[in-house]
């Protein structure tokens, strides 16, 4: 056995904590090691070239690279080894950075641990066997989940590239949160004016199948070959037949709208038969069975059906429809939830009627909103003074620790719009104004010059004025003046933050991807793979990955579309060979493994043997561990490899005779 050991400094990431020189000295002394080298950046071209050259010069047959996480560079080094004519799976990585230097401060102990890890790898790698990657064809269709601006933009990009896209949206219309906004910062262009053309383009595009009021129920398969089940909820209106004339809404037996309208956040009412908003796409009404008299009593005059007699689009008996589609890639663009202001009791949301959330104000300033664009209080008066409370549900360990990124800018925008529409005095209570985007700082200056007041201090309390004039007092420390301020206002606007969707965790499990600590979907790498996930073929766009504004969202959806395109345009995908396989002679046919496989990759064949479909197998190892007769084995995780690695790791403890130290990830 001629093993080469390569230790990477990773600048000072590794070499700052681990004595790299001592480590290669030690590695060189291990049995079977032909040479050990260090290099500043092993992943660089010269670093890789070093390995390639050594393989040829020294006839190496195994390679151990002690560097960063295999997530990052396993591909790089396997490729380097392969280029030198060796089977790529003769290369094994040791994660010195994440498992050692980054998590320890004691240098001698960290170096000792590095020696243990390298020794374990050297002993493991000699058991490696040559393996082949498999190639499977890729479906050319793409599924986009979520029809907000992120999903719309990704779908259009892919469709324009000639790919077929399924766009699945939970609500009866696409448009998402952006459809609820009035103007967009910092340019103040109208959200609807820039969004609705894209919405209609989605509907009109021959490469897009738009399924609104639908949800993904099941996802099976693997990269390039996903099988997705979508449930199309009944809207009790036949989409093909409805032309969006809205006469049914006119004709509804409810003469007055009675139901709080969620699109306007309850600030207006709608009828049981409704269209979410005038520019909704598709232009198809929906019937809410919770409030429709026909559903509740079965005794309605059904004036809606009468008026629609010619087209006969209304169908009270409509059932949910299940569709299964095959796609090669999936883009998740499921968006965000707005923080619930009532969770901070001392701001009085829900208690004092004139405390609003920012999204409610978006509807009030919007010309097609519940007040026709008038910013008025609940009693119809125009506010003479307005307080905007920043960081509600952001930067607070009681709620969300992260900064929601958009609230400062939308608060500036609302301050401007409120001032423009009402002439009110507007006070911003802020901790820091974060205006780092293109033309953001200029917008901040403009709003300040318009006379909007900025009080640097987080609002501490909101309460009714003592003199009974119905105003609210916003109390805060003006930290720049070093004074407590009590500012009476007619209206309080809570700049509520962005949160992961309430069901983000269910969706995460459905698609088998991860979440970061804050609950947003986790990208594969924060810098270099920001739209990829750890599930190959599943990409992220927009706020489901973290709070961001519209320009960033659109940039990300373009990136996600490009990634999906790169995948499906290649036509085939290579699969790692780390799959499990059954030793047929040893299998007793006990079927223990069958129900355990999360990917349904195991079937029962030839009377009494289990067989694993290598294409479906993800290499999770569950069946390997569960098999009572030990007759399931897994490539790259063979018993010999694992045991040898454990022995190698614990070897120094055994020699010392002391208590066994458990280190690293074991």
């Amino acid at each position, binding site marked *: 056995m001629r093993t080469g050991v390569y230790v990477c400094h990773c600048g000072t990431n590794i070499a700052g904590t681990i004595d790299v020189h001592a480590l290669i000295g030690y590695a060189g002394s291990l049995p079977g090691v032909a040479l050990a080298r260090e290099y500043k950046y092993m992943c660089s071209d010269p670093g890789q070239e070093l390995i390639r050259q050594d393989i040829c010069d020294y006839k190496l047959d195994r390679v151990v690279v002690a560097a960063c996480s295999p997530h990052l560079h396993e591909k790089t080094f396997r490729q380097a080894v392969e280029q030198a004519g060796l089977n790529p799976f003769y290369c094994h990585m040791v994660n010195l950075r994440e498992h050692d230097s980054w998590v320890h401060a004691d240098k001698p102990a960290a170096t000792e641990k590095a020696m243990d890890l390298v020794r374990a790898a050297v002993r493991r790698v000699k058991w490696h066997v040559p393996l082949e990657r498999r190639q499977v064809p890729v479906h050319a269709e793409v599924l986009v989940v979520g029809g907000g601006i992120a999903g719309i933009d990704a779908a259009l990009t892919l469709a324009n590239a000639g790919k077929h896209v399924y766009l699945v949206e939970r609500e009866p219309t696409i448009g998402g949160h952006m459809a609820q906004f009035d103007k967009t910062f910092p340019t103040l262009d109208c959200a609807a004016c820039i969004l609705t053309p894209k919405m209609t383009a989605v509907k009109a595009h021959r490469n897009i199948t738009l399924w609104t009021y639908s949800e993904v129920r099941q996802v099976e398969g693997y990269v390039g070959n996903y099988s997705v089940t979508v449930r199309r909820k009944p809207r009790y209106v036949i989409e093909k037949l409805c032309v969006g004339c809205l006469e049914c809404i006119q004709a509804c037996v409810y003469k007055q709208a009675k139901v709080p309208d969620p699109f306007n956040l309850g600030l207006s009412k709608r009828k049981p038969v409704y269209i979410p908003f005038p520019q909704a796409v598709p232009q198809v009404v929906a019937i809410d069975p919770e409030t429709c008299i026909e559903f509740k009593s079965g005794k309605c005059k059904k004036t809606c059906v009468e008026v629609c007699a010619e087209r006969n689009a209304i169908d009270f008996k409509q059932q949910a429809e299940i569709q299964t589609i095959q796609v090669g890639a999936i883009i998740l663009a499921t968006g965000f939830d707005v923080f619930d202001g009532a969770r901070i009791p*001392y701001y009085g949301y829900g208690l004092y009627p004139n405390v609003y959330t920012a999204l409610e104000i978006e509807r009030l300033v919007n010309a097609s909103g519940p007040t026709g664009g008038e910013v008025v209080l609940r009693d119809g008066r125009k506010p003479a003074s307005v307080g905007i409370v920043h960081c509600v549900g952001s*930067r607070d360990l*009681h709620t969300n620790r992260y900064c929601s990124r958009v609230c400062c800018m939308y608060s500036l925008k609302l301050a401007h719009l409120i001032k423009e529409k009402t002439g009110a005095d507007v006070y911003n209570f802020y901790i*820091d104004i974060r205006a780092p985007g293109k033309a953001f700082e200029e917008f901040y200056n403009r709003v300040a010059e318009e006379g909007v007041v900025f009080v640097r201090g*987080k609002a*501490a*309390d909101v309460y009714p004025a003592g003199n009974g004039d119905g105003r609210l007092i916003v109390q805060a*420390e003006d*930290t720049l003046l*070093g004074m407590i301020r009590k500012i009476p206002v007619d209206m309080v606007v809570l700049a509520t933050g962005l949160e992961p969707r309430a069901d983000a965790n269910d969706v995460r499990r459905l698609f088998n991807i991860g979440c970061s600590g804050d609950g947003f979907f986790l990208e594969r790498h924060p810098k270099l793979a920001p739209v990829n996930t750890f599930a190959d073929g599943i990409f992220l766009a927009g706020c489901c990955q973290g709070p961001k504004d519209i320009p960033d969202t659109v940039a990300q959806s373009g990136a996600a579309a490009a990634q999906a395109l790169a995948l499906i345009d290649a036509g085939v995908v290579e699969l790692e060979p780390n799959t499990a396989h059954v030793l047929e002679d040893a299998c007793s046919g006990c079927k223990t493994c069958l129900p355990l496989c999360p990917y349904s990759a195991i079937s029962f064949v030839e009377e009494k043997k289990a067989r694993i479909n290598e294409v479906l197998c993800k290499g999770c190892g569950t069946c390997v561990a569960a098999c009572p007769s030990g007759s399931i084995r897994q490539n790259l995780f063979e018993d010999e490899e694992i045991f040898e690695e454990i022995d190698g790791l614990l070897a120094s403890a055994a020699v010392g005779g002391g208590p066994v130290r458990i280190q690293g990830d074991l």
Partner: protein
Amino acid sequence: MKALRAFWFRPEMRRKMKFQREADPEWAQQVAQRPGCEGLFSCLQCGTCSGTCPLSIYMDFAPRRIIGLVREGFREDALGCQTIWLCASCYACAVHCPRQIRITDVMYSLKREALQYKLYPRRFPIPVLAQEFYGIVSDRGRSSEFWLVLRMALHSNPLQLLTLIGTGWRLFRTGRLSLHKEQIEHVKELQAELAGRRGT
């Protein structure tokens, strides 16, 4: 001329400037390691503490600035101020702080240090009350309001007793003023328990 005279006769002027040599960053680190004082360095200086504090309007430094002074290591300002004594321990700041800094406990820690090094403002009645209370309870195991108030007044401002007569009489008349000196049975054991365990 008028402006000049106003300048000249100004009774007190304070320099608003700090040399870095006046800061004691090590002390700041020490404070942050005391139980209850963690998280000092995660302060955002958002002012929520001062905004919720019912007494910040009377303080020389609002609670936010106390955290700032401690964090920067300006020990004498933090320990010599009235603020820490005005804190009535209502814990409003501690439960509102978005960084969950237990500001009330930081105040306690500063009070103890100020007493230990005699840096507290002289003739300020609150530290006097605390010390008298401490004395009575250490001696007898319980506090007796009448004796406590009497001793505090004698040690800070005896004239104050005159103003207390009215309230005292009203309490006495309703049976709420006991002249009895409360004491526990096992006062010796209590003293043994406390003995030698001082530490601030």
